[in-house]
């Protein structure tokens, strides 16, 4: 049984669906939900996501039936049909995606009755039930992907050996998703592939529609988008692999080798790509040698966030930057099997560092784990402790950083204290951005 969550770092599945659809090109979400649900998630998908903005047709512009008591009692299907028809009339899009809130799901409105009426029309209308009690943001992402793969991606038995699809970097919930997708795509392009990321720069709905031609689906996560990959495989016979989200040299090496393996790329070629990336990476990374050693910038660290980021950050800190990330707090809703998989991603560090991995959704507990891991000062003269420490987490974790007097960088959701545009932390170049951001905090007062 699930429990309450203290200061949750995600909205509900409805919010996840809105967030995912909002950044899909030329796609218009239509909400069939109680009056407030759209507005309720709007700020969370904007100001808590590095000021991502309202998007093309979300925020206050998000079409919504604004269902109230009358429809709850008498049913809201008619109102939904009217709303879909008028949305198509008013809003310029190529795909209209109906999603639902809790109340509508609970009273048993069947959105597919309404959607059916638009079959064969000029506009494509699809839909899914996404009521918030189904889960958190990631669940909404999963449902939207599944629906797209099932109802929008066109069947195509012919496969294109040079084409792969990639997802698992969750838009908006990963505030740097767009930069990250670009960076990861660049790596795969270097391996000689064309890549659909659906949500990244320059992607089109057409690419998504034709994505069944891909030779492989790459899910850059062991937790997010995996169910959708299974659906894709069932419907379109495209196999998939899951690989951990990579940040930095060590993470990216593993990533590139895993992809090379799965695609049967010649090993020597993969190694050549890695060498080239490393050459550029270390030509910048070496610049901080002076400041790193002069000021002793090695730190103990805690990483707090989702299962994609925590493992990638910890590996980067331990193996690239040479820090001591002793504790990782993973804040996702995960079942036991998923927890085992996630735990496994914190193994095999080149540096030999081992991080304690805990699964906890409650923000207040982060401080308790830090105290448990590093001990609590009782004013004794000789004391090891979390010092010098650094916290990589969300805006919520500023409270504990402030309390402990340690510096902090906000990299996981919610991010309300930074503006994020095309920045990404993935791969080699992303890790340079991250290095800049982390060390800038440390030299920020100079």
């Amino acid at each position, binding site marked *: 049984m699930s429990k*309450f969550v203290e200061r949750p770092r995600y909205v509900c599945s409805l919010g996840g669906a809105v967030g995912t659809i909002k950044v899909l090109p030329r796609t218009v979400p239509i909400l069939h939900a109680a*009056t407030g649900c759209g507005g*309720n998630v709007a700020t969370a998908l904007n100001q808590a996501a590095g000021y991502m903005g309202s998007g093309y047709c979300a925020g*206050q512009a998000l079409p919504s039936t*604004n269902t109230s008591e009358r429809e709850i009692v008498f049913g809201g299907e008619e109102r939904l049909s009217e709303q879909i028809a008028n949305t198509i009339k008013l809003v310029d899009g190529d795909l209209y995606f109906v999603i639902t809130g809790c109340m509508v799901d609970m009273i048993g409105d069947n959105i597919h009755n309404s959607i059916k009426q638009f079959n064969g029309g000029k506009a494509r209308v699809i839909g899914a039930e996404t009521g*918030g009690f189904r889960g958190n943001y990631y669940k909404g992402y999963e449902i939207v992907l599944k629906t797209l793969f099932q109802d929008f991606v066109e069947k195509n038995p012919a496969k294109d050996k040079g084409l792969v699809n990639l997802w698992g970097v969750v838009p908006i919930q990963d505030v740097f998703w767009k930069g990250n997708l670009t960076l990861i795509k660049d790596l795969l392009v270097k391996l000689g592939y064309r890549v659909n990321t659906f949500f990244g720069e320059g992607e089109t709905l057409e690419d998504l529609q034709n994505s069944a031609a891909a030779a492989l689906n790459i899910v850059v996560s062991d937790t997010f988008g995996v169910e959708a990959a299974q659906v894709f495989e069932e419907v379109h016979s495209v196999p998939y692999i899951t690989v951990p989200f990579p940040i930095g040299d060590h993470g990216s090496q593993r990533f590139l080798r895993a992809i090379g393996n799965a695609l049967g790329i010649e090993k020597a070629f993969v190694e050549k790509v890695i060498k080239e990336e490393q050459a550029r990476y270390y030509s910048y990374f070496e610049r901080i040698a002076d400041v790193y050693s002069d000021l002793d910038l090695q730190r103990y660290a805690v990483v707090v966030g989702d299962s994609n980021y925590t493992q990638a950050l910890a590996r980067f800190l331990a193996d690239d930057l040479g820090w001591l990330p002793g504790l990782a707090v993973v804040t996702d809703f995960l079942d036991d099997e998923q927890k085992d998989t996630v735990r496994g991603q914190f193994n095999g560090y080149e540096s030999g560092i081992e991080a304690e991995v805990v699964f906890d959704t409650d923000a207040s507990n982060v401080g308790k784990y830090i105290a448990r891991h590093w001990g609590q000062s009782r004013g004794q003269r000789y004391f090891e402790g979390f010092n010098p420490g650094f916290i990589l987490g969300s805006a919520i974790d500023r409270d504990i950083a402030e309390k402990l007097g340690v510096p902090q960088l906000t990299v996981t959701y*919610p991010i309300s204290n930074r503006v994020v545009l095309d920045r990404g932390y993935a791969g080699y170049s992303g890790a340079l951005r991250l290095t800049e951001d982390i060390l800038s905090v440390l030299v920020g007062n100079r």
Partner: protein
Amino acid sequence: MDYIKEKTPPIREERLGACMAFGGSCCDISNQSKKGCLFNNNRTFSQSQGCQLTLSLAILNTIRDSVIIVHSPIGCGANLVAQAGVSKGYQKLRDPNAFGLRWINTNLDEVDVINGGEEKLRSAILYADREYRPSAIIVMNSCVPALIGDDIDTLIEELQQQVAARIVPVHCEGFKTRIQATAYDAVYHGILRTLVGIEEEEADPVIIDELEELKKRYRISRTVNVLNVSSMSRSDEQGLVKLLQSLDLNVRILPCYAHPDDFEDSFEAALNVSICATHDDYFVEHMKSKYGVPFILRTIPIGIANTNKWLLDIARFFGMEEQAQKLIDSEVRELNQALAPYRQFLQGKTAFLGGGEIRIITTAELLHSLGMEVLGLRGFHFDRYGEGLLEELMAEIPESEKAIINIGTGQPFEQANLLSRYKPDVFVGHPGGNGWANKQGIPVFPLFGQAYDYMGYVGVYEVARRLTRTLKNTSYSQNLVKHVRLPYRQDWYAEDPFAYIKQDLAL
């Protein structure tokens, strides 16, 4: 008014007959409203808005030393994730030791939807009390538990015996009303039932110190509660306090950023002064019927005319009109001198406004007094309080009768159509929907902001000064309009902006 014995407050559609969808001239809406034939119309196309739960948080996330429990699936109250830093900063302005925002979501899932969510709420309340030892635990009820029949009031009654914090239930289920402002009633309802006057029955001391008693009575006779709104700045608040102090009044500020204990003896006041009827009518009416505290609810101190009215109304109550008039004369004289260069710059510039009825009507007056022309207004909803203020505006500025008025919460598609038609020099809008105007190439001045002054005499100067700054360089919006487009099809801009408003009942 007496709804306090009920567990839940009535909705504003019923209590105030508020209107949610309208398009026409100021003169039209005024006539229809006066005749009582302004109905709660609907739209055949609508865009998302908040619910009373989301707006309740506007007050609740300011209350110090409390924990908010949102009893709902994981998404309701989601905007809190963006508010934590902001709320903490502003709480600290009132109390440097304030903790900031602490909240819990009960995370109702598919199992709870069938089996009920009371146990999760119970564990959340007990956890909040144990973990934080707060003064108040605020429980916000949402749609799902209302539909599955959770009895949060009985549970709270039971738990109140076990926990140290006051538990404040707030019934703000979103689906019940489309008028978000019902939120304020929901919040005040909870506060009135659980925080106001709770320690009343303390035994009287055996010997009553008559002198002390007299002093206390005198103090109360000079105490006013000023009811603030979370959309105003701390310095706005301080500015108003200063004005009232110059009339020798003690000022108590409620409800935003207050400590839960501050409500306890809030009935020990000579007068309740609202600065926004949309916000406070439910509270002041109940304070009057339950504790006999009279109130002033007429207007918000925005612009010279309305600040004067606001101050004079209060002064009149205390028989200090003359003193107030003197104060006003000297304040206005000094202000007018300071405004001269800005008036020159702003003269003839056009504006369109959007936001809550009270703010937009009074801000329209302010802009007019700076020499600007108001082309139109968009109000979230419209009720008798808007009617009164609009009446005064049209009496003072006859040409405002012709101005267009559109009622709707959000609904930026109507805004886009209106702005492309009227092409104002500036859009003065409620935060949340302003980016759309910017993308149309129209510079934006936010209707309010927690970091800026808008109220009283200083507020007039500050608005004039900042508005002038806004208009000195409009390159940002000029760039946007060249490279970004809004989602609406081109033919929408040629259509009647109110084409999707459906008259609910035949007139």
